[in-house]
Structure formats: structure tokens, C-alpha cells
């Protein structure tokens, strides 16, 4: 009998997600709430009543788009064997650079040009920030995890300083940057009409385009093949004539550009100003998205939808059931934890297959001793 072969990593990803939801259910039980009611409200909150208004669906989609872009950033670096934990800082720098560029634009600038400026400057800002880590890695062998963590905090304080001193909202509120008018952001009127929500913006299309583009680069170009070769075994790649250092820098540049695009979708679309004093949590949630999505663009898109639902439905859950919305963040964190602890499932499945193998063997020998 031929058994259906499901790739193991896929099973592990599903198991990690499942474990996260089970742990979330346990948490709800601990505080005396019914997990079925809680999760039902969470998922209902992500769509609400689409026949009346698409606003909840739009909210879920745009959150998924931001998660998708930051997830793609981690996935792209991941394919080349790099862990881009700095997506949050790159988002912040990309969003900040694009905001500064837009402040300089004339107010009658055509919308298409505004959008182009935002995307180009945002991607460029993120790319430069990540590129620093890439160069440090390629030239000095500095671990990209350490470098991007440090760069996250440099971004945090740099943006904090410039927003407070040069671009505050007004004379009183200095912790938020000057608010951009909708016309000068990624927001589009016709999208607002369809989804009955101002949050939905051009970033949605950027995310879809980037899923296709990263898939194409990774799987259909020589450049992508070389990058994957560096990720698989940098010494073998070097031996084959691929310059691993250049590959590392290129991968970080692209990963940073993707994070920068996530940044503009968030800071110049979903909201229209930058709040200082926090690194965008989307940058860290991108880790969960890339892990569950197995670093493949399609997988990342699917995982982003799942986490988008979690993020967008959580406030509704709080209103309906009184379960604090941090529960959704707990579930995401636990999914990351279990994705790291993949050995747990490896050990479990080894035990299961051993049992399965042992059972027929015992049956064949008749189960009795001579």
C-alpha cells in the first residue's frame, strides 16, 4: 500500500501552530474562560459581518500584508542562512526615511509619484540599514544576529531623537511624528470605499507583488540559485566560484528592502505617523511568519494570513469575552517557541514510528516465545 508522503517540515509547522493554539486554550481555561467561545470570537472578529461591511476583512488583509512583507524579509535572509532579527529596526528606518521624503514633497504632487517615492525611499532605507549588518558579516565575520540587534536599538534611538526634535506632531505631542494627510500616504480612496476602512492601502498590492517577485528571484534566476547555494553550504558555494561575501551582502540588502516596504505599509498607510519609543512588533512577528511559512514565499503568504487573523480579531475577542487581547500575542510567541523546539516533534514521531514498527514485528512472531 502506498502511503501519502507529507513533507516533514510541513507537519512540524502545523504541529507548532497547533501547540500554540492549545497553549492559548489552556491559558483561557486558567483564567476561567471558555476557549471555544474565546477562539470563536477571535476568528469572528477577523471577518465580522462581511455582508454589511468589509472593514474587518480589510483590517485582516492589511495586517497580513505587513506581516507578509516582514516575513518575506526574514525568509529571504533565511534562505541564504542569515537570521534577520533586525526587521523591526529596518521597518522603522524605512518608514522614517519615507516620511521625511514625503514631508519634502509639494502637496500637489501626483499620487502615483508620491507612492513611487514612498516605496523607493522606504525600501532603500531598510536596505541600507540591513546592508550594514551584511557588510559587517561579510567583511569582519560579525554574527548578523548581534549586528542587527544592535542596529535595531540604534534605529530606535535615532528615530526617537529626530522625531522629537525635528518632526514632532505639534508643540505639545513630541512622541509622535507629524501626521501625513491621506493624499500624501499609501492610502487610496477607492480602496477605502471598497473596504469601508481607511487603513487598507496600496501596501496590499506591494505584498502580493513581493511574494511573486521573491519566489521568482529565488527559484527562477541564477542569482537566486547562487544565494541558495551560499545558504546551503558557503564553502561549497565558494568552491563553485560563487562569492559568498557578495551573496551575504546582497541577501541582507534585499531582506532590508522588504522590511522597509513593510515599514512604509505600516507607517505611511495603516497609520500615517510614527510613534517613538517602540519597535514595531510586526518585525518580530515576521519571525513567526517565516518559521511557519518554511521560508518559502507561498508559505509565508499563508502564514501571514493566519497571523493577520490573530492580530486583527483580538480586540473583538476582548470586547466580546473579556479575555485580554495579549492572549493572541502569547499564542504567536508560543508558536515561535515550538517552531524552535522542533526536536520535540522529531522525538515524538521517532517514538511513534518505533511503536508502529514494533507492533507488526511482534504480531509476525506470533507474540509468543518458543
Amino acid at each position: 500500500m502506498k502511503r501519502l508522503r507529507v513533507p516533514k517540515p510541513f507537519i512540524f509547522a502545523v504541529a507548532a501552530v497547533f501547540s500554540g493554539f492549545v497553549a492559548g486554550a489552556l491559558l483561557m481555561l486558567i483564567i476561567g474562560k471558555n476557549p471555544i467561545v474565546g477562539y470563536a470570537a477571535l476568528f469572528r472578529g477577523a471577518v465580522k459581518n462581511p455582508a454589511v461591511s468589509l472593514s474587518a476583512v480589510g483590517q485582516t488583509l492589511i495586517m497580513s500584508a505587513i506581516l507578509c512583507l516582514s516575513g518575506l524579509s526574514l525568509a529571504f535572509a533565511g534562505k541564504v542562512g542569515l537570521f534577520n532579527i533586525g526587521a523591526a529596526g529596518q521597518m522603522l528606518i524605512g518608514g522614517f526615511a519615507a516620511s521625511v521624503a514625503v514631508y519634502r514633497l509639494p502637496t500637489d504632487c501626483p499620487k502615483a509619484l508620491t507612492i513611487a517615492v514612498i516605496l523607493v525611499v522606504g525600501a532603500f532605507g531598510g536596505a541600507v540599514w540591513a546592508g550594514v549588518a551584511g557588510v559587517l558579516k561579510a567583511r569582519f565575520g560579525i554574527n548578523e544576529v548581534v549586528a542587527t540587534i544592535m542596529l535595531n536599538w540604534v534605529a530606535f534611538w535615532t528615530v526617537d531623537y529626530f522625531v522629537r526634535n525635528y518632526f514632532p506632531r505639534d508643540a505639545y505631542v513630541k512622541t509622535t511624528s507629524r501626521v501625513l494627510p491621506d493624499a500624501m500616504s499609501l492610502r487610496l480612496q477607492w480602496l477605502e470605499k471598497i473596504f469601508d476602512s481607511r487603513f487598507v492601502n496600496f501596501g496590499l498590492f506591494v505584498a502580493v507583488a513581493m511574494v511573486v517577485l521573491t519566489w521568482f528571484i529565488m527559484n527562477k534566476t541564477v542569482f537566486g540559485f547562487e544565494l541558495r547555494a551560499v545558504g546551503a553550504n558557503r564553502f561549497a558555494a565558494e568552491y563553485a566560484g560563487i562569492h559568498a561575501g557578495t551573496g551575504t551582502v546582497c541577501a541582507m540588502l534585499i531582506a532590508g528592502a522588504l522590511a522597509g516596504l513593510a515599514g512604509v505599509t505600516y507607517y505611511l498607510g495603516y497609520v500615517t505617523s510614527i510613534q517613538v519609543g517602540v519597535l514595531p512588533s510586526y518585525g518580530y512577528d515576521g519571525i513567526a511568519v517565516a518559521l511557519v511559512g518554511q521560508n518559502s514565499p507561498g508559505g509565508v503568504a499563508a502564514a501571514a494570513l493566519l497571523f493577520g487573523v490573530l492580530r486583527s480579531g483580538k480586540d473583538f475577542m476582548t470586547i466580546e469575552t473579556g479575555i485580554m487581547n495579549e492572549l493572541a500575542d502569547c499564542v504567536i510567541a508560543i508558536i515561535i517557541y515550538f517552531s524552535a523546539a522542533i526536536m520535540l516533534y522529531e522525538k515524538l514521531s521517532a517514538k511513534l514510528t518505533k511503536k508502529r514498527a514494533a507492533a507488526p514485528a511482534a504480531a509476525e512472531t506470533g507474540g509468543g516465545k518458543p
Partner: protein
Amino acid sequence: MSAIDTFLYLSPMAIGVSMPILAASLGGLFSERSGVVNIGLEGQMLVGAFAASYVSVRLYPAIGAAAFWLSLPVAMAVALLFSALHAVACVSLNANHVISGTAINMLAAAFTVFFSRTVTGSGVIDVRGGIMRYTFPGLSNIPVLGKILFTDTYHTTWLILFLLLASWFMLYKTSFGLGLRSCGENPHAANAAGISVTKYRYVGVLLSGALSGLGGAVYALCFDKGFTGSIYGLGFLALASLIFGRWNPWGILGSTVFFGYASTVANVATVMPAFAKFPTVLLKVFPYVATLLVLVFFSRTSAAPKAAGEAFDKDKH
């Protein structure tokens, strides 16, 4: 004010604020020396801050100021238990240390606010009083040193300095320390010498939990006066101190005090005319940039434990 007066004026605050970072950084030292990379220091500190604030508020009506002191060991114990998650993942389940550490940070941020909002109704726990400053009579009159070490200090500062001494002694003067360090440098050799790598790595990570929990608790009770849902990147500053201090207790002391002064100057610059025109952002980013520069300058002779971040499998070589 002359430069030396300014320095002396800032010292109590700078020394005070560097101590929680020092505690967490020592925790990171134990973990990384045993071979487990721990970027979850931030989360462990946050859990410590939460536990200390919660216990303080709960016990204060019954036992008064003793509640603050009792909350410190409780915070250490809770953070130690929390760090066990990281230990299980990294040591027993061969997890990627960085991913597990990230999960620890995110879990801490979500869990603490979740529980704080569930039990108190808000994401913030206010502690009235907290740990108070103390000026040593007599000793504080010693020129310069009296002002730096004995004026407006916290008792927890001496506790943490004692732990620094104890950590140095444990790591470099005992067989336990030799064993722990060998697990971070060459776990296979350690294993061949009959040392249980698993046991030592567990101890290393759990100590990091207890120490960073203490750091978080001290910060909450001395400076924040409670739990606010964030520890403001102090855990990552501790990580930077660990690297800048080149994985060595005395180097860590130097780097945390250095960073403590930098952040204090940045914080008071707005109200001190001497610094009015100074771009404080340079002081804020200084620890992180300095850490990267140290890594660049010493890129040929890395001080990091050689096997830090590597899973240990007895059967593989």
C-alpha cells in the same frame, strides 16, 4: 558646574542605573559561558520586574517595606522558572538559541501584560515607595569616592556587586566554573572528561534567569516604581555589555558602568545647560555602536565562547 562636579553629581544615578544591567549581563555571562546564547535577557528581566512589583503590592499592606526585599528572591525564582523554558528548548531539544530567545522575549512581553491586566485590570502595577536611596553617614564625606560610592546609593547595588565578585570566583576559581566554561568552549572535550554538558548548560541558563530576574526587579523597585509593561531594552543593553566586556566579569563591570554614565548624561542633558546643545542621540546609540566597533576591531581574536550557540549531541562529532 565644573566637569568634575558634574561627574560627581551624575554618579549616584549612573551607578544606580548600571546595576540592573550588570546583574542581567552577569546572567548572560553564565549562560553564554556554558554554551547557550541567550538573547532572552530582556524577557527574563521583564518577568522579574513583573513578579517583584506584583509581590510588593500584594505583601506591602501586611508586612510593610519588608515586602520589597522579599519580592527580590521571589522575582529571581520566577524568572529562573521562566528561563527553564529556554533551557529545555536549547539544551534538551536542540532548538536554535536565537529563535528560542526571541520567543522568550515575546512570551514575557505578552504573558506579563496579560496576567497583569487579568489580575489588576490594567497593564501597569504601581509600587508605592519601593527601594529607597541611602547615604552612608561618615563614609559619604570621603572626597570623590564618598560621593560616587556612598551617597544616595541603593542597598541592592552592594548586593549586585557582591554577586559580581561571587560570579568571578565561581567561574574562575572553582571546579564548577572550569566545568561550565569548558562546556562553552569545547563540549565534546568536556564530555570526554566526564562532565555532563547537559547539566552545566541547564545551570548556566537557570542562573541567567535568576540574575536577570534580579536585575529587572531592582530596576522596577528602584527606578520605575512598579511594572509598566516594558523594561526599555535594558536586557539588550546587558547583551551589549556582555559583548563589549568581552565575556569577562570585570569587563562587564566596566562596560555597564560606562553605559550607565552615557545613558544618565543623555537623560539629564535636556535640563543641564552644559549639554543643552549636545545631540543626545549620540549618547543613546553609543553602547550599541561601541559594541559593533569592538567586534570589528577584535574580529580576528573573538572572545566569545567557541561553542556558544551550538547544540551538543553526544553521538556526533
